[in-house]
């Protein structure tokens, strides 16, 4: 069998098997090198897969050559290709440029274990993205969750521990809910394979358990995705995790949960539950809108940079969900594109934050005052990424805002509300990003912002790569938009 045919498996196997090697290895630098190499390789594989998907369409890989539904199959189409790009890209970039920052925050003789956990988290997220089997999703969800708890708990101060515990409890409850849902579906269909479920649910005469299953799965995944009322774990986790870790998980972890949510709700349930589109819209849209409003509002008054960005993430998750809840092609395209673009923006922002944190005494807005003069490159990149978050034309953020608004305007009454909310939250975004930028450039330097110098060049370079990616995909949005449209087609094939 050719190497190309093995790519789907390798996507998971490479990071998954590098991790145990790291446990055997000693020495932080060696571990870092190995982990980075693995991530980069994973990214390369992801790119190759994306190209293949674009050329030949859906790729299927049977684990152990057992045909689905008896064995586990990996399925890769436009949607998860995009998700894979985000995950692996984020990991590769953050690891490449994050070494110094991590070494500063974590006890050196534990770094090897830390990198191992990081790789496992990466493999878990990628595993969720590629698999076509409902239970396998659970397994890899737990892999990624456990690993994520570890790398979050690595945070320097004690709040990291409590944040981790909260996340651990809520995450496990979410996963268990998902497991219950899968169990009920399995009970009624006798299969665990997405495609097979999709085919068989239609035949199920009594739909009650399926409805309940849909409820459990949606709630469980919403917990993982930090959808509005269930977002309480997110701010602390993002705030107290090591900065580089924040950049990594902010870019991808919630996205993956949303990906599964979309796949399950649209592919498995959409076509088979009567009035599902309506239910989906009427349950999720209000939550999305509330999330957007409240997230943005809190961010406006937040005084700590990371916390501010974390709450903005809550709002952004709302955007993605809102797009999906329209259950229209335009809507889902917008949602998925935003999934991608928000990853770009937040990744860049948190990387910049990490860069600031390496030189400044703290991350409250007061601490970063005037850093724009002492750390011009970092500050400029932060401003650029911020522009993307706000949605200034020419940046990636604008593309998704545009798509989202135009999708909303198709919707009629709900759409008008959505438009109003989106506009309001964009204004809020302007305000909270501006508060940051104003402090950076026009604030009078206090504390050690005066003496601060640029962080190691690798970090700055990484920040800039991420920031420029925002511009590039703002001007050439062909790739994400194309893949997302394909994804939307795939997800909506059940709609009349």
């Amino acid at each position, binding site marked *: 069998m050719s190497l190309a045919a093995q790519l789907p498996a390798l996507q998971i196997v490479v990071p998954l098997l590098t991790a145990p090697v790291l446990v055997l290895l000693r020495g932080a630098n060696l571990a870092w090198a190995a982990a980075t190499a693995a991530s980069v390789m994973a990214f390369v594989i992801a790119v190759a897969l994306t190209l293949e998907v674009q050329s030949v369409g859906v790729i299927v890989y049977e684990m152990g*050559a057992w045909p689905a539904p008896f064995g586990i199959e990996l399925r890769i189409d436009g949607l998860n290709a995009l998700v894979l790009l985000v995950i692996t890209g984020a990991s590769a970039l953050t690891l490449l440029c994050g070494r110094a920052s991590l070494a500063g925050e974590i006890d050196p003789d534990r770094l090897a274990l830390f990198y191992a956990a990081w790789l496992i988290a990466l493999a878990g997220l990628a595993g969720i993205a590629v698999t076509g089997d409902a239970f396998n999703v659970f397994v890899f969800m737990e892999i990624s969750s456990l690993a994520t708890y570890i790398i979050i708990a690595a945070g320097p101060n004690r709040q990291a521990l409590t944040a981790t515990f909260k996340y651990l409890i809520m995450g496990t409850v979410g996963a268990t809910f998902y497991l219950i849902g899968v169990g009920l579906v399995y009970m009624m269909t006798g299969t665990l394979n997405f495609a097979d479920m999709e085919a068989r649910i239609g035949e199920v005469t009594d739909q009650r358990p399926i409805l309940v299953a849909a409820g459990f799965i949606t709630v469980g995944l919403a917990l993982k995705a930090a959808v509005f009322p269930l977002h309480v774990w997110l701010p602390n986790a993002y705030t107290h995790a090591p900065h580089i870790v924040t950049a990594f998980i902010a870019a991808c972890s919630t996205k993956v949960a949303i990906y599964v949510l979309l796949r399950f709700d649209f592919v498995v349930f959409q076509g088979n539950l009567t009035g599902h589109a309506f239910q989906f819209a009427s349950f999720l849209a209000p939550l999305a809108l509330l999330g957007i409003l409240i997230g943005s509002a809190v961010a406006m008054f937040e005084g700590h940079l990371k916390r501010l960005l974390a709450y903005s993430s809550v709002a952004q998750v709302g955007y993605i969900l809102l797009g999906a809840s329209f259950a229209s092609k335009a809507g889902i395209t917008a949602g998925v594109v935003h999934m991608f673009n928000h990853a770009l923006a937040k990744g860049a922002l948190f990387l910049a934050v990490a860069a600031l944190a390496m030189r400044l005494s703290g991350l409250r807005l007061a601490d970063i005052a005037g850093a724009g003069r002492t750390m011009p490159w970092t500050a400029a990149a932060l401003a650029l990424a911020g522009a993307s978050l706000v949605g200034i034309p020419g940046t990636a953020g604008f593309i998704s805002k545009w798509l989202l608004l135009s999708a909303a305007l198709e919707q009629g009454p709900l759409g008008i509300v959505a438009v109003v909310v989106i506009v309001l939250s964009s204004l809020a975004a302007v305000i909270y990003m501006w508060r940051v930028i104003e402090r950076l450039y026009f604030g009078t330097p206090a504390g050690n912002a005066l003496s601060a110098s640029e962080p190691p060049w690798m970090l700055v370079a990484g920040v800039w790569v991420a920031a420029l990616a925002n511009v590039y995909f703002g001007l050439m949005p062909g790739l994400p938009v194309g893949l997302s449209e394909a994804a939307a087609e795939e997800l909506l094939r059940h709609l009349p």
Partner: protein
Amino acid sequence: MTVFFGIFLLTLLLIIAVGIVRAQNLFTAVMLTGIFSLIMAANFFVLDAADVALTEAAVGAGISTVLLLGALALTPSQEQDVRGGRILALFVVTVTTAVVVYATFEKPRLGDPQAPVHTHVAPWYLEKTPELIDIPNVVTAVLGAYRAYDTLGEVIVVLTAGIGVLFLLGLPGAVGRRKADDLSSGRMHLNHHLVPQVVGRLLVPFILLFALYVQFHGEYGPGGGFQAGAIFAAGLILFALIEGEREAYTILSPRLLMVLMGSGALLYGGVGVANMLLGGNFLEYSVLASDPVKGQQWGIIAIELGVGITVASVLLAIYHAFAARGL
């Protein structure tokens, strides 16, 4: 008859569960958890799930109790009484339950042979296994072959837990500043108590032997890597309890434990990669031997071994991490 026996067990479960939640003293709660797991295991056995019963007994009743006690030795064992938050909690919980019960009324009845579960995928396993893999225990076949990818994930989960605990608590002699030999061999063991020590010394070899039996008998009867690993770990933990950490380190040094943790998972993954190199898919054991069936069997044996090694070493390492923290 079995139905009523089942109902009896289940009712007992409920009572114990409530007891666990209500108990103010955490030691009591932990002990009740152990009993809970045992009864759950018995219940699984009644429901024809021998492997699961064995695992639940070994992991749930054995290891997790030990870990909980290890944690309790380091934290206060008295729960403060709750203030507020009850109403909301009760509300949420009641809603959830109501939803579940609502769902039950259209579920297939217990043991209904016509349930989709029994008509769709499972029959294929039951009838194909003899010809494709040719081992009696279909559970092991599914676990080790058809859904081996899940099982790999499972091993990684265990490994991750190990990594996590070692990362958080450190492991003298392997992770963290502390050396193995600054563990005073005082307190957390019983070697000034003659009776337990003698009996323990007597039992340990048998336990380890039994572990090996479970490990390699997995293809034929209930058992396999996980159960074996758990039992093996239990045996060594007992040894550590009666002889003290230092002694335990002399047989399995922490560094060696870490190596084993990694290499078990690597063994598992290595089999899969080998399959790739031999031109098959990942974890397609058939290519291991000229006769695909033989290949499957070798593959299963190999990966079960990997599972056993990782599980045992991880559980042991976790125990050591907790124990050493106390000294």
